[in-house]
C-alpha cells in the first residue's frame, strides 16, 4: 500500500511486506530468498522456505483477500533461523484440520499449499477464526 517496506520496519530484524497482488507474491519470494541467504541457509533450505512462502503468500491473497507477511531473522545463540508470519482478515478457515490435508482445496489449486508449506518448515502454527482471519507462522532453522 502507501508505506514503503522500509517505513514499516520496526526493528532491524523485523520487516513487513504487503500481499495485495500477484506481483507481491513474487516480491515475497525474493524477500524470503534474500533473508535466507543473510541467515546462511544452504541452497536447498533457501529453496524450501521460499517455496513455502510462495504457497502461503498465495493463500493469503486468494483465500484471505490479501494481508501481509512479517519477516523475523532469528539469532538464538549459534542457531540462526527465519520466521515468516502471514496474516489476513479474510473469512478464516472453518476446519483447519481438513484444510491441512493433502489435496483439500476450495480454490483452483492442487490443495498442497498449507500441507506442503508445513512439510517444508521446521515449525508451523496456524490460527484461524471464521469471519476474523487467519495467521500462519512458519520457521526454518539453518
Amino acid at each position, binding site marked *: 500500500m502507501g508505506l514503503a517496506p522500509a517505513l514499516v520496519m520496526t526493528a532491524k530484524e523485523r520487516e513487513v511486506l504487503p500481499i495485495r497482488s500477484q506481483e507481491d507474491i513474487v516480491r515475497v519470494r525474493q524477500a524470503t530468498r534474500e533473508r535466507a541467504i543473510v541467515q546462511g541457509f544452504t541452497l*536447498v533450505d533457501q529453496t524450501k522456505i521460499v517455496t513455502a512462502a510462495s*504457497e502461503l503468500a498465495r493463500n493469503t491473497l486468494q483465500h484471505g483477500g490479501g494481508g501481509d507477511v512479517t519477516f523475523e531473522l532469528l539469532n538464538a545463540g549459534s542457531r540462526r533461523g527465519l520466521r515468516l508470519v502471514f496474516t489476513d482478515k479474510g473469512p478464516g478457515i472453518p476446519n483447519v484440520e481438513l484444510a491441512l490435508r493433502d489435496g483439500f482445496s476450495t480454490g483452483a489449486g492442487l490443495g*498442497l499449499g498449507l500441507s506442503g508449506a508445513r512439510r517444508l518448515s521446521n515449525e508451523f502454527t496456524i490460527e484461524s477464526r471464521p469471519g476474523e482471519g487467519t495467521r500462519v507462522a512458519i520457521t526454518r532453522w539453518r
Partner: protein
Amino acid sequence: MDKIPILRMGRFLLVTIQVDMHDRLALQLQDDLTQRIVRDRAHGVLIDISSLEVVDSFMGRMISNIAATARVLDAETVVVGMQPAVAITLVELGLSLEGVRTALNVDKGMALLREQVAAAGRT
C-alpha cells in the same frame, strides 16, 4: 516483459523460462503454448526451467496442465534442466509432476522428444 517467448525449431516448440513468473504470466504461457501447438502443428514442446529457482504448486500445476493439454493435441512435452534444490523441494511439497517427461538438459530433452515422435510414427 509480460510474455514468455516461444521459439519454433522444426516441429518443436521451445520455451525457456528465465523470469520469476507471477501467476498470470504462467497462465498466459499455458494459453500461448496451446495456441501455438495448433497453429504451428507442433509435435513436441520443450520447456527449459534451468533458470527457475522455485517451482511451487501453482507452477507445478501449470507444467502438468501444459503437458496434459499438449497430449490431447497430439504433442509431447519434455521439461528440462530442473535444479536439484527445486527437485528436492518439489518432492517434499508433495508434487510429483505426474505425466510430465523430464530430461537433464536441452540436448537430452530434444533427443527424447525426437524418440517419442519417431515412436509415434511421425518422423
